[in-house]
């Protein structure tokens, strides 16, 4: 065995990369980028089609849509794009090119009419301005063309709308794209709803997202996106080179961060978890697979060593003899652990169960490090086999918990306390 390394080298030498390996890599990268552009294009096309349908339906309902200004001009960009909404409900831009700033794109509306106006940025939302009001607002408009519309509000109803095209330029490269690039073109979204006074989570916004967004996978790149100093920080989730998730956070008023909204591509299941999830994984395991784990532990009688206050677990070949333990709530629980792997250190520790850890249990895989684990609820002493030990776990409240061998985390399972 002393020459194991040379054995390995010899086996490895039987394969060689192709002489044109770099060209193949370049092609792979181009394919990757093209797929990303195609998915982004599908999304953009969907948005354009949706916009056209809205405009068409507005036209059919009798609303006159008048357009003023045009994009793509050669005029110098301004810091604040100014628009005037007049008494007839028309919108007049003072400039058609605006430069992005670190906190976003600044728009100012002058309502010169004698009725309130509502103004909207297509795809992003809107605001209102009272008669005579000059209102400056900041928007997370990506570089490129945007449509700003204005309408008079009379008797609480919006009247005819007019729109202007605005070109946003980003000469300093401030904006990091956050638009979803879903392969299927389908996406979902949700927004956080909190009672007044709810405290958020302190710290860096990206780290807060990393800790509290569920449904993440290990390979996901989680990074700040949008404009770097936006009031509502945006964090994007990049998976396999495509943006599959977008999380917007808002300040709770005392420096903590809460979910403002979450968007994800169809097929992902991003959500907001009050409990730290660590790096989470896919959720929604088929219940049948999960239930099957405990089918054996639920059967039998007093001789069932995986069910009761005094449990027994054998560890052999870096695994346990069960993936499910069932214990009574509120009573002291013990585990007699026998490490049958000679010379190998092993133990049993217990942690809070997360969706990702459920996935690991069902698939029989390791969480891949300590990042995915929360604070240990019980840390079992390591014993080197062959040996055994009695762990006194104490009392647990009803619920499901994750257990694993810290040295061989593929050995894991669920502790059901009921």
């Amino acid at each position: 065995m002393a020459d194991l390394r040379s054995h390995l080298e010899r086996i490895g030498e039987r394969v060689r990369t192709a002489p044109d390996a770099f060209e193949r890599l370049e092609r792979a990268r181009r394919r990757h980028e093209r797929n990303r552009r195609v998915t982004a294009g599908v999304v953009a096309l969907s948005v354009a089609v949706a916009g056209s349908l809205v405009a068409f339906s507005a036209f059919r309902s009798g609303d006159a849509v008048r357009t003023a200004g045009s994009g793509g001009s050669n005029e110098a960009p301004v810091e604040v794009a100014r628009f005037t909404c007049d008494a007839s409900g028309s919108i007049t831009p003072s400039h058609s090119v605006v430069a992005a700033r670190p906190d976003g794109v600044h728009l100012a509306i002058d309502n010169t009419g004698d009725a309130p106006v509502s103004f909207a940025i297509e795809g992003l939302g809107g605001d209102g301005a009272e008669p005579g009001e000059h209102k400056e607002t900041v928007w997370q408009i990506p570089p490129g063309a945007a449509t700003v519309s204005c309408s008079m509000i009379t008797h609480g109803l919006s009247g005819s709308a007019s729109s202007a095209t605005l070109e946003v330029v980003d000469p300093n490269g401030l904006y990091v794209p956050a638009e979803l690039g879903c392969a299927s073109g389908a996406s979902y979204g949700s927004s956080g709803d909190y009672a007044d006074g709810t405290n958020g989570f302190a710290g860096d916004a990206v780290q807060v997202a990393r800790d509290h967004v569920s449904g993440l996978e290990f390979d996901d790149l989680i990074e700040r996106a949008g404009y770097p100093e936006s009031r509502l920080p945006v964090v994007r989730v990049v998976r396999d080179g495509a943006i599959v998730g977008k999380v917007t956070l808002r300040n709770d008023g005392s420096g903590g961060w809460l979910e403002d909204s979450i968007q994800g591509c169809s097929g992902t299941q991003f959500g907001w978890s009050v409990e730290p999830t660590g790096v989470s994984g896919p959720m929604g395991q088929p219940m049948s697979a999960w239930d099957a784990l405990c089918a054996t532990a639920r059967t039998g009688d007093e001789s069932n060593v995986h069910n009761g206050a005094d449990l027994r677990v054998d560890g052999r070949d870096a695994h346990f003899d069960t993936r499910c333990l069932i214990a009574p709530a509120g009573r002291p629980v013990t585990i007699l652990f026998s490490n049958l792997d000679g010379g190998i250190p092993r133990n049993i520790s217990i942690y809070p169960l997360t969706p990702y850890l459920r996935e690991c249990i069902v698939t029989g895989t390791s969480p891949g490090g300590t990042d995915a684990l929360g604070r240990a609820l019980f840390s079992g002493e390591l014993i080197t086999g062959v040996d055994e030990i009695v762990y006194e776990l104490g009392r647990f409240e009803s619920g499901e918990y994750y257990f694993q061998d810290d040295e061989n985390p593929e050995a894991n399972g669920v502790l059901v306390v009921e």
Partner: protein
Amino acid sequence: MDRMQEPASAVSDRRAASDPPVGPVSFEAFFEAEHERLFRALYLVTGNAQEAEELMQDALVAVWERWDRVSAMEEPTGYLYRTAMNRFRSRLRRASRAARRTVGSDPGGDAFAAADERDAVARALARLPERQRSAIVLTELLGYGSEEAGRILGVKDVTVRSLASQARAALRTHLEDHDG
């Protein structure tokens, strides 16, 4: 317990052979220095040349796309191997899920053993669990210390030592059976 020796000299050899010069290097130079070794390591871990090439491409594309940041890291090679091993684990997870959906499928069809019937070491290697195989390739072939190998595999260093020790013991048993 069969305690594994730290292959410190192998690490020095590896670094001497492949370390980029001080300061930023081009991705092309990094690729030239690393891709063959990565491919062979992945072949040993996966047992399948095609899968090894796909994983190598995936990992290298990911590194290329982030090269401005990766090239500034202390150990870009470690990042490359971490990325490759993460992709490998993701594939195993997906294969495991697919296997549950597809009755009778063989998620890990290992061409390695079939291709190397005559080689006892290759056959013995193919019989090792994936984690043990990864640990032995990283520590023995690539010369990583258990701490760095642990970072690449996402486990503790003591686990790497256990896995490598188990792998050596299993290889020894397989080879003794073969010789006997």
